[in-house]
């Protein structure tokens, strides 16, 4: 027993020592720099959308601009915004509505580079409002009184689904929106627990492969070529490191253009950071990766969001967008 208590004491001391030793991240807004190359941490969700940056990193486009990306994958936007604002990551990836919600809540975020846009082609978008094969529902109007799954309430997909219902001539207030993770939607739809689901790839491809039908392309109903998500930083970091932000913008724009021009390579790199099965990946519709955000589409998204009461006050797009 003496040995046990001695062991416990030694263990405790060791832990205290290691706990103290490992808490030296440096100042959060520094970004480690060595030999002219600045390493920046980028918070992303491991999905198809962020393929261009993985590709850009692999092709040396970031290195060319003196940057090295360190990818930090989080499971959802919930971890990325606080991570960027607290300086854990220098940049992050988030949908535009989330950024506007954050800004109107006084969270200091600044979009710096474009992320993804909808393809603008109905029936061939990465996002769709889907029903199962034998569903009687033919249009978004018929969703009144029905249960529709979206990934996050009071966010971009709520705006999109409500707009799709409105466009089809229905009353969005009569639709029962339920919150559900994208990956659970195919099974829930199949089992009849929900009547429709607003999904993104690869769940869209899974539902299509089961014979599911698309009754609306909700992002296109918001704006023909909607800017859906962007890369952002904290306003503090943007002010203190304008040169790093500029390098990141240039390298990201090049990466987006490269991925847009080389869709096969973009598809290929997705296998390095997700587990999407090869058969599903072939069917996946890639988003558009324009180098610049589409301001008028973001204004449309903002107006609809305001109508649906998503923001505490009107977002300041001049301050938010690059």
């Amino acid at each position, binding site marked *: 027993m003496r040995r046990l208590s001695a062991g416990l004491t030694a263990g*405790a001391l060791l*832990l205290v020592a290691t706990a103290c030793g490992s808490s030296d991240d440096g100042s959060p807004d520094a970004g480690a720099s060595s030999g002219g190359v600045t390493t920046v941490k980028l918070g992303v969700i491991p999905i198809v959308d962020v393929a261009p940056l993985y590709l850009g990193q692999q092709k040396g486009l970031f290195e060319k601009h003196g940057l090295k990306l360190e990818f930090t994958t989080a499971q959802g936007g919930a971890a990325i915004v606080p991570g960027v604002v607290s300086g854990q990551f220098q940049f992050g990836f988030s949908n535009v509505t989330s950024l506007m919600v954050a800004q109107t809540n006084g969270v200091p975020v600044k979009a710096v580079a474009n992320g993804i846009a909808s393809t603008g082609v109905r029936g061939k978008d990465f996002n769709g409002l889907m029903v199962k094969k034998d569903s009687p529902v033919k249009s978004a109007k018929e969703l009144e009184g029905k249960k529709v799954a979206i990934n996050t309430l009071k966010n971009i997909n709520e705006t999109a689904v409500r707009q799709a219902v409105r466009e089809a001539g229905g009353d969005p207030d009569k639709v029962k929106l339920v919150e559900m993770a994208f990956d659970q939607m195919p*099974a829930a739809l199949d089992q009849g627990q929900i009547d429709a689901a607003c999904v993104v790839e690869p769940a869209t491809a899974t539902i299509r492969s089961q014979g599911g039908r698309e009754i609306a392309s909700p992002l296109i109903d918001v704006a023909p070529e909607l800017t859906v998500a962007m890369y952002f930083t904290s306003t503090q970091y943007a002010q203190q490191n304008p040169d790093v932000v500029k390098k990141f913008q240039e390298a990201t724009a090049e990466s987006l253009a490269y991925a847009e021009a080389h869709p096969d390579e973009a598809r290929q790199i997705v296998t390095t950071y*997700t587990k999407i099965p090869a058969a599903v990946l072939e069917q996946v519709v890639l988003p558009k990766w324009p180098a610049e955000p589409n301001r008028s589409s973001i204004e449309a998204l903002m107006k609809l969001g305001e109508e649906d009461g998503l923001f505490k006050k009107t977002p300041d797009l001049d301050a938010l967008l690059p």
Partner: protein
Amino acid sequence: MKGVNVALGAAGLAAFLALGEAVPRLGLVKEAYFPPTSRIAGALADEVTDSAFWSALGDTLTGWALGLAIASCAGIVVGVVVSVVPYLREVTASTIEFLRPIPSVALIPLAVLLYGTELRSVLLLVVYASFWQVLIQVLYGVQDVDPVADETARSYGLGTWARVRHVLWPTALPYVMTGVRLAAAVALILAITAELIIGAPGLGKLIGVAQASQAVPEMYALIVVTGLLGLLINVGARTVERRALAWHQSVRGEVAV
């Protein structure tokens, strides 16, 4: 006796695996969402050849072990100090009862804000959840000290440290061991949950990526790994408990039967 138990355990597991194979094959659940055991086993075989799997396993075990060790040490020290210092128990009782039921996962936003998606976020959740398991057991254990023994020690002029060492600790140790064993399981669950939700490196993160990728067999394969890990940890904790308490009548009694 022990051989029979192992055989029974193996038989139970085999029956369970057979059920897992039969349920989707009979069409009770769709294969696409719940693959049969054989397909999960195939995915598991693929996983173990992947170096990413082993580094994730290492990350999870690091988070678990560090978290458990910190929580155990802190729980024991705080428990003993609270019990020994007069009035401290009364002062802290309501605070402990207030903090204890707060679910660790509710602290995820705080963890992310402080530490991002690193190991330290996982540690925060693991330590918070398992600390109470140990602390409460230590407090119970100290309450169980025989007042006569304590008085005797006092009248023989033993100091506080000597009484903690020779009277309190031997009485409390079985409770402490129970607390650590419970904490070991809780720590594993929280480590994987934290990885799954926050995205800190580890098995939980791999499960999350497989889920988001619609890679169903891989997802179940990784879930099976976490189950096996829990089983091993429980067996390990019981072994340590038996060794450490070999002198105690509860364990001696068990052996005699």
